């Protein structure tokens, strides 16, 4: 991310970074257009499309009737015919109505047509949690989309990466599912101005370490970094890897890290069962079995829907405390040291609500 070095000064939210990514892409290429529900909505998708309709006009920023499968199909049809559409779903649940078009046509048109068709399409989906959204407005369904060959699935954790990957996604000739964790919209980071691209090439090491490898997605990356920081203070060196791209899955960085550390913990925003962590662990066990010094651990959501009440979500989402504890267990860190690390985390989090974004994530990252 050399572009980042250029502008260490400017700190903006991930939501604004996405907005800038859209603006840069739309300004460069007339073939791009966007479908969204609520283009004039003052909330403007967490600010990510604020002012865009005004700037590019209703030919480019098209209000989509509440018809998700139709929207994706129409976007695929336009993409087959040389356009580069972007669709935004305010909640991943709404995209479930479009699974048919995503799975049958977006993912497969290039394949079925023997390479004759291309589907340059970006589908933004917002996942996540918070403010009592409840079982049907806060799911993290990224593994569903990661199941299908032909789709790319990206999931940024950092503002600068979100902008760079979004621009890459829009320029990509494949359908890209762009997953945004709701809490991360408020997270801040250094973001270069202007146009730049970050490749959709796979996981990245975001904290170097040698004792344990934590592979995380999106919001969980920030929880893992927080855990890594307190663990560092007690002499434990944690390597945190941001998955970034769930599909196509590039395991090289993760495998290299596990070879070094011999310990693997996955933390993702979705269910543990049949989840991203399962795929990562299976790949590591299959190819780096002898490098492992302990059984890998997967952290994620328990096997029930995510309820609304802040009373009920206690312990549902894996946080930095849980990650820290798991690292301690896996490495056999002594109780007194662990007490220190956990106490420091508890102190930091003491008065924080469980159902709103953690101010710790106001970077810069």
């Amino acid at each position, binding site marked *: 991310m050399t572009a980042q070095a250029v502008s260490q000064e400017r700190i903006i939210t991930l939501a604004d970074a996405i907005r800038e990514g859209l603006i840069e892409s739309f300004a460069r290429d007339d073939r791009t257009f966007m479908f969204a529900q609520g283009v004039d909505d003052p909330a403007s998708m967490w600010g990510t499309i604020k002012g865009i309709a005004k700037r590019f006009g209703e*030919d480019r920023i098209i209000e989509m009737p509440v018809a998700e499968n139709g929207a994706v199909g129409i976007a695929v049809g336009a993409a087959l015919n040389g356009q580069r559409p972007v669709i935004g779903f305010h909640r991943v649940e709404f995209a479930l109505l479009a699974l048919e078009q995503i799975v049958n046509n977006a993912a497969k048109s290039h*394949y079925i047509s023997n390479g004759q068709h291309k589907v340059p399409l970006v589908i933004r989906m917002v996942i996540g949690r918070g403010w009592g959204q409840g079982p049907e407005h806060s799911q993290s369904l990224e593994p569903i989309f990661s199941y299908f060959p032909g789709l790319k699935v990206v999931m940024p954790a950092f503002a600068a990466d979100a902008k760079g990957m979004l621009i890459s996604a829009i320029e990509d000739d494949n359908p890209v599912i762009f997953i945004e964790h709701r809490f991360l919209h408020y997270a801040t980071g250094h973001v270069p101005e202007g146009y730049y691209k970050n490749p959709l090439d796979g996981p990245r090491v975001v904290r170097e370490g040698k004792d344990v490898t934590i592979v995380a997605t999106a919001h969980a990356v920030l929880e893992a970094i927080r855990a890594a920081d307190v663990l560092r203070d007690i002499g434990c060196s944690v390597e945190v890897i941001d998955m970034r791209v769930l599909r196509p899955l590039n395991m090289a960085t993760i495998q290299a890290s596990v070879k070094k550390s011999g310990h693997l913990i996955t933390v993702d925003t979705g269910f543990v069962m049949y989840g991203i962590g399962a795929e990562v662990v299976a790949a590591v066990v299959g190819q780096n079995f002898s490098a492992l010094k302990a059984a890998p651990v997967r952290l994620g959501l328990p096997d029930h829907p995510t309820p609304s009440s802040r009373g009920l979500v206690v312990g549902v989402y894996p946080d930095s405390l849980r990650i820290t504890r798991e690292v301690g267990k896996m490495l056999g860190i002594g109780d007194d040291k662990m007490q220190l690390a956990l106490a420091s985390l508890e102190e930091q989090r003491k008065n924080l609500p469980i159902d709103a974004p953690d101010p710790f994530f106001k970077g810069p990252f």
Partner: protein
Amino acid sequence: MVEEAIAEHYGEGEMRCPVHLSIGQEAAAVGVCDALALTDKIYSTHRCHAHYLAKGGDLNRMFAEICGKAAGCIGGRGGSMHLMDLEKGMMASIPIVASSIPIATGSALADKRMRSGKVTVAFIGDASIEEGVFHESANFAVLHRLPIVFVCENNLYSVYTPLRQRQPDRPLTNVALAHGMRAAHGDGNNLEETYRLMSDAVAHARCGNGPTFLLLDTYRWREHCGPNFDNRIGYRTEAEYLQWETRCPIRALHKKLGSGLAPQREKAMVEAITVEIESARAFARAAPLPEPAQASQFVYA
């Protein structure tokens, strides 16, 4: 004649994929496609052979595709239900009921955005208007006045289920009218009538006046999927079939042409087509199968 050859030779086991024949529905395909320019675009369904041929799709590559050969129009990846020929504007065939409708709508949106003047056709069956995505697409197409014609071939059945068990008794065109869409209705077994109605719809679309729902009455002669007649298995009656047989679109055309088609000329045409079919079958038979390694190609562009 092409599909009769498919039916005749299907049992030989070279064509190893489901086939949905359009025998009995030829006039709809031809009348619609004749009203289009080469550069106009069509999207079809599982029952796509007639549409593919009427739009000018390559016969060799069609047979090769049905036989699963590398020389098939899509290299053996899709088989009979996925025929396409981009050079001829046969953009895609999608065998999930109604799944091609939003794709065609998006195609029309792209052409509108590019001001290309091209018209898109979505060929659909009577069952596809039962799917939600038809309504989603119709609403959008009308809202944005897209250059598209939804051609609904009502052959009265979805697999073995008659229309009356699936939809209330009302004109199918009412559904389009309720979306504020222009609608037209005609005898899909009458080539001239189909052509005339379609020409109006195409002109309407090309001038930027928006979509038309063109309902065409027709009937499939053979089983839903496969080479045989199936009037005796109980879901429809022989009498119904025979009644529709009297409305054979080809015989009707023949009658209309009358002395306009000299017997000599007709004989020569039939012979030429027979040769073309036989040579396409031979081409497909001789063509090599795709290599197994090709199965993993084209997952990503």
